[in-house]
């Protein structure tokens, strides 16, 4: 007796569901990757924190002067912008290689493909948590304005992780098939650092502020950054991020349904 075959959509949704519920696997693999890299180092991932901190400490006064900014406002802005940028940029780069790097697993055993993306997200969240030490230090000197708007920070961070999932599956899949894409992406991310308001502020553009606003990365940084440096993000940023989230998931599910089974042949 044959039961009806599950559709490609069912299989893709099942992969997502089983991948997310295999939390013990991706938590372990994410940690594993960090421990592997820093196994014999005394302070481990805090080396990243130190190098990021040194970069911010060096750039802060210099660019503050170049842009003619008040240092007490510019310094926390730069510190938070920079570590949020690092989170997003590393997520983009790691996601594009996630399936390619998991070739060994994908070709040998049945495992939800979603796990390989969640592992990358978890790893980068751990690194981000280490970098939060810098934010804590900066806040010692330039405390944030207390208020309800601070609550938007964890929600914004969660939204970044949620977006990394659709982005990782979609782009990881494309990168597995077309091996030029990871190279293109890493170049775009490099240029993106200068074109996105990380070191500079969107309002420095004056009437050309539209240039920042059409950049999706600006809105992702803004929803994390704005709650910490007073004010809170604009409705435009929240709206842009939510629109991208929904659109991203729709596109990802369509593409993932169609090509999920092909990934094992591509990696």
């Amino acid at each position, binding site marked *: 007796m044959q039961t009806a075959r599950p559709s490609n959509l069912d299989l893709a949704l099942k992969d997502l569901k089983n991948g997310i519920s295999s939390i*013990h696997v991706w938590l372990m693999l994410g940690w*594993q990757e960090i421990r*592997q890299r820093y196994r014999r180092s005394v302070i481990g991932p805090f080396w990243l924190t130190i190098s990021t901190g040194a970069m911010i400490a060096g750039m802060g006064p210099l660019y503050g002067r170049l842009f003619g900014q008040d240092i007490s406002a510019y310094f926390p802005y730069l510190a938070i912008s920079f570590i949020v940028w690092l989170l997003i940029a590393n997520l983009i780069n790691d996601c594009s290689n996630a399936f390619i790097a998991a070739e060994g697993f*994908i*070709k*040998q*055993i*049945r495992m939800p493909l979603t796990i390989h993306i969640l592992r990358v997200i978890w790893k980068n969240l751990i690194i981000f948590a280490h970098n939060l030490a810098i934010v804590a230090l900066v806040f010692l000197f330039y405390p944030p304005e207390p208020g309800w708007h601070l609550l938007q920070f964890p929600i914004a961070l969660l939204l970044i992780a949620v977006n990394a999932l659709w982005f990782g599956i979609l782009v990881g899949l494309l990168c597995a098939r077309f091996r030029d894409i990871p190279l293109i992406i890493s170049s775009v991310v490099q240029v993106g650092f200068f074109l996105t308001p990380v070191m500079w502020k969107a309002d420095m553009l004056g009437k050309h502020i539209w240039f920042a606003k059409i950049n999706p990365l600006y809105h992702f940084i803004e929803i994390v950054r704005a709650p910490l440096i007073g004010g809170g993000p604009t409705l435009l940023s929240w709206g842009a991020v939510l629109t991208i989230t929904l659109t991203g998931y729709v596109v990802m599910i369509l593409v993932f349904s169609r090509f999920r*089974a092909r990934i*094992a042949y591509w990696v």
Partner: protein
Amino acid sequence: MMTSVVATNISVEFPIYGGKSRSLKNTFIRAATGGLLARDAADHVVIRALNDLSFEFREGDRVGIVGHNGSGKSTLLRTIAGAYEPVSGAIDVAGKLATMLSISLGMDTESTGYENIFLRATIMGLRTREIEPLVDDICAFSELGDYIHMPMRTYSSGMSMRLAFAISTSFPADIVLMDEWMSVGDAEFSIKAQARLRSMLDQAHILVLASHDEQLIRRNCNKIMHLDHGQLVSLDSV
């Protein structure tokens, strides 16, 4: 639920994106080894590793897969394992699988032997609470002693294999997939390992073993599947 593997008209094709060669255009080449080379609808070179296979494995089956290099043995094992999904046809696998295709997959040389037990067993699909009761048995069987708390990079290759073997054979499964018979360790350890492997295989409802060794297959299997160029030549009981 009865353990079974049922394949209906399954084909597996590997696209070769770097392999566009004019001489292959619109031709089928039958090489001495390997699957059929062909072109798909989008004009990519593809290797048809499995071509329209249908078979059924039931409880009690001990299937030996034979065929020359590139005949599709490993691809078939990976397709049963669920890593490759057939481009056409369907395969239904009912039962808990143990894939012995790469027994150290997921292990990490910088981690200790003890940590690797959890890494490897998690990759094999076990939960932490299921792994904990197995740890003593794995440590004892692998005879690593205090080395179990040392990073695996300090192990000799034989020691790493012992550990990987001990973990992979530490819990029963309904269906066991093996690419060549596993043998590990020196003469003395090898005897112990064979006994452990046997007892795991005896508990399994279905064994699928790919090998070049006809003698070995005749000793251990009650069905022989012969593959050639990804085609099923014969599937006979012996």
